C-alpha cells in the first residue's frame, strides 16, 4: 500500500439492533499512517463502528473498505475454514478489543509466543513483551497480572503480528498515569514505523496527546471530525482572560482579541498582571458542547 492512500473508507454506515439504531449514517476516512481517535459517550456507537471495521459485526447498510477489503467478508463463512484473502487481510490487522478473554493458566511469554505463530512475519515475542513493559512478568501466569498489566498483554497480542492497521478499543482503561505515558510513547513509535492506528477512548487528554484527527460520535451520528486543535472551531472560540484586580477581586473577560486585552492590562498595571491566565476551551469543553448539542 502506498503512502497517502486511505486505510479506511466508510460511507453511509448503518447498524440497528432490532429498533435501536446504533450507527446512523456514518462517513469516515482514515489516512494511512494516521492516528485516528473516535470519541463519544457510552452507547454512542463507537464499539459497534469499530467492530464492523474489524469484521466482527455485520452492517445493515453502507460501504466499508479497510485496507482495500470489505471486512464483512472476513468471518462471513461459517464452518472451520478461513478464506485465503480474508486470512491475508487478518494478517495485516491488529486488534485490541475491550475486555478480551485471558488464558489464566498460561504465562505472558507463552501467550505472546503462541499468537506470534499465527502471523507470517511476527515481531520477536520477547521484544514485544519488552515494548509493553512486561519483561519482568514474562514467566508469570496471566491471572496474576493487574488490570493494567492484562491490558498491556492485550496490546502485545495486538501488535505481535506487526500489523499495518491497529485497532485499539479503550486501550488505557485501568492504567496509572505513568503507564499511560509509556503507552502513548509506544503508540507514537508504532506510528513512526508506519502503522495506522484507530483508537476509541474516554480520555480526552489521550486523544489530544496522540491523535492526528479526532471524530466525535454520539447517538450513532458523526458530529465532528478534525484535528484536536481545530475540533469544533476551538481555535476561533473566545479566549478567557482572567486576572486579579488591585482590590484583590478576580476579574475575567471573554474576548476575540486576547493579545490586545493582555497588552492593555500590562499598560494598566505597568508591568506584571497579578494572576494572569489566558485560556481557550479545552478539548473536553468542545467535546461536551458537541455532545450536549446533539
Amino acid at each position, binding site marked *: 500500500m502506498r503512502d497517502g492512500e486511505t486505510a479506511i473508507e466508510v460511507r453511509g454506515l448503518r447498524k440497528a439492533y432490532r429498533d435501536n439504531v446504533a450507527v446512523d449514517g456514518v462517513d469516515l476516512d482514515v489516512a494511512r499512517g494516521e492516528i485516528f481517535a473516535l470519541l463519544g459517550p457510552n452507547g454512542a456507537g463507537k464499539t459497534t463502528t469499530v467492530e464492523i471495521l474489524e469484521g466482527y459485526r455485520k452492517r445493515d447498510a453502507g460501504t466499508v473498505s479497510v485496507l482495500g477489503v470489505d471486512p464483512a467478508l472476513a468471518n462471513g463463512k461459517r464452518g472451520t475454514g478461513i478464506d485465503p484473502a480474508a486470512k491475508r487481510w*487478518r494478517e495485516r490487522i491488529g486488534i485490541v478489543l475491550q475486555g478480551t478473554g485471558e488464558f489464566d493458566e498460561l504465562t505472558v511469554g507463552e501467550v505472546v509466543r503462541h499468537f506470534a505463530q*499465527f502471523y507470517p512475519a511476527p515481531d520477536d515475542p520477547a521484544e514485544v513483551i519488552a515494548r509493553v513493559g512486561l519483561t519482568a512478568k514474562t514467566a508469570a501466569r496471566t491471572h496474576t497480572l493487574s488490570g493494567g498489566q492484562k491490558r498491556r498483554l492485550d496490546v502485545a497480542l495486538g501488535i505481535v503480528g506487526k500489523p499495518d492497521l491497529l485497532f485499539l478499543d479503550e486501550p488505557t482503561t485501568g492504567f496509572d498515569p505513568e503507564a499511560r505515558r509509556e503507552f502513548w510513547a509506544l503508540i507514537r513509535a508504532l506510528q513512526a514505523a508506519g502503522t495506522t492506528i484507530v483508537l476509541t477512548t474516554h480520555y480526552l487528554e489521550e486523544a489530544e496527546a496522540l491523535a492526528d484527527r479526532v471524530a466525535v460520535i454520539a447517538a450513532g451520528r458523526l458530529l465532528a471530525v478534525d484535528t484536536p486543535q481545530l475540533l469544533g472551531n476551538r481555535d476561533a472560540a473566545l479566549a478567557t482572560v482572567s486576572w486579579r484586580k488591585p482590590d484583590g477581586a478576580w476579574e475575567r473577560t471573554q474576548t476575540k482579541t486576547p493579545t490586545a486585552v493582555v497588552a492593555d492590562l500590562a499598560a494598566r498595571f505597568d508591568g506584571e498582571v497579578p494572576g494572569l491566565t489566558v485560556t481557550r476551551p479545552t478539548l473536553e469543553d468542545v467535546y461536551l458542547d458537541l455532545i450536549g448539542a446533539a
Partner: protein
Amino acid sequence: MTTMVDAKARRAGAVRLGLSQAQLEIKQFLRSREQVMFTLAFPAILILVFGSIFKGTIEGSGGVKFTQYFVTGMIATGLMTAGFQALAIQIPMERDRGVLKRFLGTPMPKWVYFAGKVLMVAFIAVLETVVLLTVATLLFGLKLPGTGAGWLTFLWVAVLGSTACTLCGVAFSSVARTGRSAPAVVTPVALILQFISGVFFVFTNLPDWMQNIASIFPLKWMCQGLRSVFLPPSFGASEPGHSFNLPMVALVLGIWCVVAFALCLTTFRWTTKRDG
C-alpha cells in the same frame, strides 16, 4: 514446482499450528488442578463407592459381577465426560470470556481451535482410561482383553465413541446462552444419560421405554461395546437382543459423528448474542 513446495510448507505450518494449539490446551488443563482432580479422580472415586456398595453378581449372567459391569460403564462415562461434558461447558465459558473472539480476530484458521480441543480431549481420555483401568483391574477384578482382537475392539469403540462425544460437545456448546449457565444445561443431560444408558444399573433391567430412549444416544452403545471387550463372551446372551451387536454399535456411533459434525459446521457461534 515452487507452488508444490509452498503448499507442502504451508501444510507443515498448519499441522504445527494445530499441535501447538493442542499443547496450549493441554497445558491449561494440567495447570488447573481442580480440573485435573475432578476429571481424573471423580470417576475413580465413583468406582470405589459403587463397587463397595454393590457386591453381587448379575442374575442369569453366568457369574459376572456387577462391579465389572459398572466399571466398563464408568470407562464409557469417562470418555463422555472428557468429550461431551467438558467441551459443552468449556467452550461457552471461553466464548463468554472473549477467548473465541480474540482468536477470531487473528489469521488463525478456525479449524486450529477445534484441532486443539480434539487433541486435548484425546489426551484426557487416554489418561482417564488408564487411571480407571488401573483402579478397576487392581481392586475390582476387571480382566483386560486377552487377545489382540479384544484390544482392537476396545480401540475402535473408544475412538469412535470419544469422537462422537467430542463432536456432540462442540455442537452442544451453542445451546448454553452464557458460560455461567453452561454447567446447569449440560450436567443434567450427561447425568440422565448415565442413568438410562446402563452405567449405574444393568441396562436390561431398565423399563423398555427407557431402554428405547437410551438407544438413540451414544452412551448406551459405548457401554455395550466396552462390555463386549471386558465381560466374558457368554454375557452377550444377557444383552438386549441377546448379542453385543457390535455392527450396530459402530453404526449408531458413526451416525452421531456425522450428525454432530454437521451441527458443528452450521450452528457454531464464535461470539455471544450481545456481540450482534
